[in-house]
Each structure stands twice: as structure tokens, then as C-alpha cells.
């Protein structure tokens, strides 16, 4: 599908046709079924505002257990300069990483092929802090349509649907660590940088999280990528907790051997939140000691929230 015809096959890029924030998702499955552990990752590289941005990966998936790895990637990317495919406008394309030391093909199994999804979710600017549209029925005689109905029923609805709550927060290199814990215990990931938060819902820090600015179903994605570790037989887990309730885990994935790139986990869910529900991103690791978050810009730890439905 490419309904706005922004894709250029010769470079596998999607060129910006409408300015906005784009929710990008995808995976790069590799044709690897060996038992030796390697690192696999998908990522996105973009030109934003005419400036080339280095590739930022999804989870660093450590795999080596007899089936093709399917590393996850999801990112919220700003695109402002429009243009034809192959032109000088902003664009997005996928990247892949594997550390086997040799060439690997991507998986060619029909149900496990690389894919990229780029979807506009929010304008660059708009009217924030609007409520979810009520979409009330139009007045019947003897009542009549006034500016009130036109503004609430049309203007404000369009404003909200083109500028819904979106948020991306991530960890900028510092000294944060996640302690050794036995699953299902977890620690709030101390994200310290906000890229976008148009409804001002995110609070950074070790107790931070996202307060839902309006009620609704939110697309929630978070990934933790750790620094490399010599530990073996280790679990890496990622989850979300709403209002301090039980952590809803996404991944709990296994690390069998020492690694040199880092490793990570993701959580990806659609959760219905009430106004002001507080969502926190939790991580767990059982390496035996505290483990630092990966400090490479390309191996990002991040949280994304996008309002999708009332």
C-alpha cells in the first residue's frame, strides 16, 4: 500500500508527502537458524527538516535458537519538507543489523519477510489540549445550527483528529543502570529526554511516565537496549504499568552468551487509558549485577505513545 505515492523502490525510501509526525514500524527477519548467539536489529534512518539523521535501531535482539530472528522496530519521526520520491524532501528508510561476521540473507519465508510501515499520525503543529470530540447529533427544529455547532462539530473535531496526543521520550547517554532483578520484578526506565509531547503528558526521571491527557486507546511502544554484557543465561524484559498496577510485560527474552553489541527487549500494546492514567515503562534484567543502558545514539531506549481512538 502507498496511497500518497511516496515510496521510491530504487532506494527503498518513503518520501514525505505531507508534513507531520510519522509512526514507523517494521522488522528485518534474517535467514539465520544457528545456535550461536548473535545480535539482530531493524532500524530507521531519516532526513528530517532537510538534515540527515543517523540510523536509530529498534530492539537489539539476541538470538540463536534455531529459528529466524524477527527484531522489532518502532519510532516516531518528524518529517517537514515534502517532495517527490527521489527528490530533496525528507524521507525515511529501514536499516538492518546482524553481527554474525558474515553475510546473511533476509528471511524469504512468506510469513516472515521484512516490512516497513510509515503512517502519518499527527500534524507538526495544531491546537493542543482539546478534548476528544463528542460528535453530538445536529439540532432539530425549532433549534437551528449556530456557530457553536459548527465550531464544536466540525472545527474542533478536525483540529483534534489532525493533532491528537503524541509523545516520544528517550534516554540520552548518562550513567543510569537497571538493577539485577528476578522476573517479574522490574524498574522504571529513567528516560531523560523528550522529543515530542504535544499535550505535555510526559515526566522524565526515575519515577517518570506518561499521563494520558485525554481518554482513549493509545498505541504504546517501548524498548530498552542495554550495554554489552559478558553475562550468560540472562533475561531481558520490557513492560508497562498503569497507575502502579501489575506490570504488563511484552518481551521476556533470553541471552545465552556474552555479547559485544548490547541486547534489549520491547513491549508493544494498545491499552485503553482514562484521563490522567499514569503509564510507566519498566525493564528487567537478570545479569547478576546492575547493567547500564546502551549509550550509543543508534541503540536507543525509548517510549512512544500515540492516541488512536476514543
Amino acid at each position, binding site marked *: 500500500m502507498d496511497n500518497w505515492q511516496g515510496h521510491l523502490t530504487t532506494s527503498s525510501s518513503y518520501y514525505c508527502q505531507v508534513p507531520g509526525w510519522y509512526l514507523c514500524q517494521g522488522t528485518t527477519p534474517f535467514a539465520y537458524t544457528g545456535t550461536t548467539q548473535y545480535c539482530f536489529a531493524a532500524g530507521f534512518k531519516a532526513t528530517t527538516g532537510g538534515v540527515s539523521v543517523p540510523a536509530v535501531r529498534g530492539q537489539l535482539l539476541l538470538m540463536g535458537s534455531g529459528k529466524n530472528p524477527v527484531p522489532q522496530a518502532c519510532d516516531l519521526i518528524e518529517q517537514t519538507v515534502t517532495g517527490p520520491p527521489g527528490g530533496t524532501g525528507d524521507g525515511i528508510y529501514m536499516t538492518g543489523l546482524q553481527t554474525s561476521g558474515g553475510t546473511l540473507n533476509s528471511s524469504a519465508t512468506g510469513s516472515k519477510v521484512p516490512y516497513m510501515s510509515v503512517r502519518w499520525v499527527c500534524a507538526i503543529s495544531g491546537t493542543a489540549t482539546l478534548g476528544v470530540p463528542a460528535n453530538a447529533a445536529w439540532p432539530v427544529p425549532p433549534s437551528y445550527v449556530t456557530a457553536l455547532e459548527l465550531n464544536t462539530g466540525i472545527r474542533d473535531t478536525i483540529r483534534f483528529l489532525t493533532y491528537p496526543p503524541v509523545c516520544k521520550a528517550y534516554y540520552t547517554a548518562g550513567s543510569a543502570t537497571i538493577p539485577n532483578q528476578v522476573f517479574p520484578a522490574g524498574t522504571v526506565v529513567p528516560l531523560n529526554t523528550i522529543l515530542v509531547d504535544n499535550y505535555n503528558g510526559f515526566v522524565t526521571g526515575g519515577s517518570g511516565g506518561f499521563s494520558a491527557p485525554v481518554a482513549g486507546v493509545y498505541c504504546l511502544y517501548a524498548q530498552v537496549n542495554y550495554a554489552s554484557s559478558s553475562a550468560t543465561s540472562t533475561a531481558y524484559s520490557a513492560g508497562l504499568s498503569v497507575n502502579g498496577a501489575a506490570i504488563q510485560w511484552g518481551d521476556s*527474552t533470553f541471552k545465552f552468551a556474552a555479547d559485544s553489541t548490547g541486547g534489549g527487549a520491547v513491549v508493544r500494546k494498545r491499552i485503553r487509558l482514562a484521563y490522567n492514567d499514569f503509564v510507566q515503562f519498566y525493564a528487567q534484567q537478570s545479569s547478576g549485577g546492575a547493567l547500564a543502558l546502551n549509550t550509543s545514539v543508534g541503540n536507543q531506549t525509548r517510549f512512544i505513545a500515540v492516541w488512536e481512538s476514543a
Partner: protein
Amino acid sequence: MSGTDPVAPDFIAGYGPLPADFNAWVQAPFTFLTSKVVFRAQMQGGTSLSAGSTQVYWDTILEDPYGGWSSGAGTWTCPAGCSGWYEVTMSAWSANPGITTDVIESILYLNGSIYSEMSASWGVDGHATGTSGSVPVSLYGGQDAISGWIYSTASVSTPTTNGQYPTFEVIWLAA
């Protein structure tokens, strides 16, 4: 709840709109775009997983406003009139596989055939293990039915602990 993919209205010169026209031209399309077709479900009561792929018959339906879920078939059918692109999000979970060579996958089936192995991770030896994935899928209203499956190398059950339930979510993205 009911609704269909929005259609842009035609404003005919000389036609005096009635309130019902505004409801059809404005309220109904905007309502569909505000409150999208959504399905969210979990498996809380546990189910046995074979060594291989197993269909999950979700036992806890969190929301299904368009009534697409069939507990007998274990499928969710795209509502009639709501054809379009949907995104499926799934977390596949199993109990402790007890082996160091376990793989766990979240898998989407479409009309009884495998559509996408959305995620695949190395299963943890020692406690419950899971993997999260997603994929966009084109669905034809009234016809196409999807289901969630879990691949587990080990023949175990799904967890019954809150926070480790397998989960499945579907949302309409675009016509």
C-alpha cells in the same frame, strides 16, 4: 456500535440540508474516525500450547464494540462496511519452557492461513517468557477473519499471572 468507512458528502447546489443530513454528512463520518473499530482481548485462564503453533481462543474480551469476535472459531471478523487497513498488536506468552533452545513467536493467521510471524524471540529458561510484535493487514469487511497464534518450542501452557497474559489488539487505520 455500528459505522462504516466514511464517505465524503456531495453538497448539491440549491439543496437545503436537514438536520439528518448533517448527521449523515458530518456526525457519522467523524464518529467513525474518532471511535475507530477496535478489538482487544487477553487469554487469562491459561491454555495448553503444543510444541509448535497453537491458536489462542481468547477468553477475556476487553472490548469488541462491532461484535466481530467468534468464541467458537477463535477469530475476529472485520465488520461489514469497514474494510480497510488494520494493525494487529500481539504479545505471545508461555510458561517457563525449561529449556535453553526455546523460541516463542506471536503469529497472525488470516482466513485460516498463516499471514505473519510478527515477532520471534529466544525463550527464557527459568520463568515465563514472551514476545511482542505487530503487523498491518488489509481486511475486507464481513469476510476476512483473523486469529492469534503462539509458536512455542516447548509444550507448556500460557501463564495465568496478571501481567503475563497473552494479549491481542486490532485497530482500524485507514480505508
